[in-house]
């Protein structure tokens, strides 16, 4: 019980990571909440193996991104909630525009990337060095460098397409 309390305390202190990963990977509130829940569950399962070799934040990002990458929605559910989800998404974008137009534009662009590209952008934003990104994803540094360059160019183009400079 003590471990569970310690775990929940850790997670609450790092909730921002959950929000960022779920918002980057999912484009509507329902899927974002589902993904956030799955990440917490996977973190709990992996928690006993966390030995503190890396920082808690780095470990949490790794588990969260791996979960997001292997997280697929059931097709049926998507069809069933498609219309509802779209409405939620429009509302969310409208709300973001009033709070921070820049962020709304960014999310719109990032949702057009594939899952690995999303991970690359997330780690870049969080200030991870190329070497660390390569380690997190299990790619070679050269491959990471090439992918990172391509992904940055892609997101720049997507943002420019919306009429913003990057």
């Amino acid at each position, binding site marked *: 019980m003590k471990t*569970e309390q310690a775990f*929940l305390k850790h*997670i*609450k202190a790092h*909730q*921002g990571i*959950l*929000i*960022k990963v779920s918002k980057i990977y999912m484009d509507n*509130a329902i*899927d*974002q*909440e*589902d*993904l956030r*829940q*799955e990440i*917490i*569950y*996977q973190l*709990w*399962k*992996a928690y006993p*193996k*966390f030995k503190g070799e890396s920082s808690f934040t780095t*470990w949490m990002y*790794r*588990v969260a*991104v*791996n*979960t997001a*990458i*292997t*997280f*697929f*929605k*059931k097709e049926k*559910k998507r069809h069933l909630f498609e219309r509802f989800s779209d409405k939620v998404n429009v509302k969310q974008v409208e709300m973001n525009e009033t*709070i*921070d137009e*820049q*962020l709304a*534009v*960014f999310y719109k662009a990032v949702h057009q990337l*594939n*899952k*690995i590209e999303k*991970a690359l952008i997330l780690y*870049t*934003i*969080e*200030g991870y060095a190329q070497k660390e990104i390569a*380690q997190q*994803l*299990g*790619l070679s540094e050269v*491959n990471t460098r090439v992918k990172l360059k391509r992904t940055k160019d892609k997101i720049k183009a997507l*943002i420019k397409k919306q009429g*913003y*400079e990057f």
Partner: protein
Amino acid sequence: MNFKSIKSAMDAEGIPANQKDVKIEMAKGNPVAIIRKKIWFELLTTLLGAILFLMVPFIYDIEKRVGSIYLIFMAITVFMLLGNVIKFSLFLSQTPTNETNTWSTIQAFIYNIKTTLAVYKSYSISSALLVPIPIFALILGHKSSEFYNPDIFLKFLFLDLNLSEILTMLFIYLGIALVFYLLIVLWIRYYYNKHIIQLEDLLVSMQD
């Protein structure tokens, strides 16, 4: 706009009211969770089926010798199913959690599920080759059945037949076994392959 300003904006974003609550509970959409759930369902169904099949000679009035042969073959099949259950249980307990790097996590999961399914297929082939005997035992050994004829069953079983009869029997036997096997392969493809393909595509996209 740049990554720094985006990070500041993201950091400044508050936590939505509906996401403030932190509870340990599995979401339903993850393919790993879906596969695990399916495997558990299959395990329970298999065990229940095995118990029911082993009870058959005690419920129906079956000729004694045929009933014994039925029990022997069903017992072997059940032991094989138990082997399958053990392999599946190992898969459930050994599937890696996501704490390793992304590439390794996906690769290990695909490897685990593929080897588990390979074992599942081989057990299925063996079971498929055994199952026709108990089926014939039920048809020809059930005293109230219109096909009741234990002597023919024993004649078939001990190959007390001429060459053309043996070949005909072999053809029918392998046909039934093949149908069982194909049904199992289709079941695996329908339930598991789509998730494996999605994960394999991700690995390929990482290598490009």
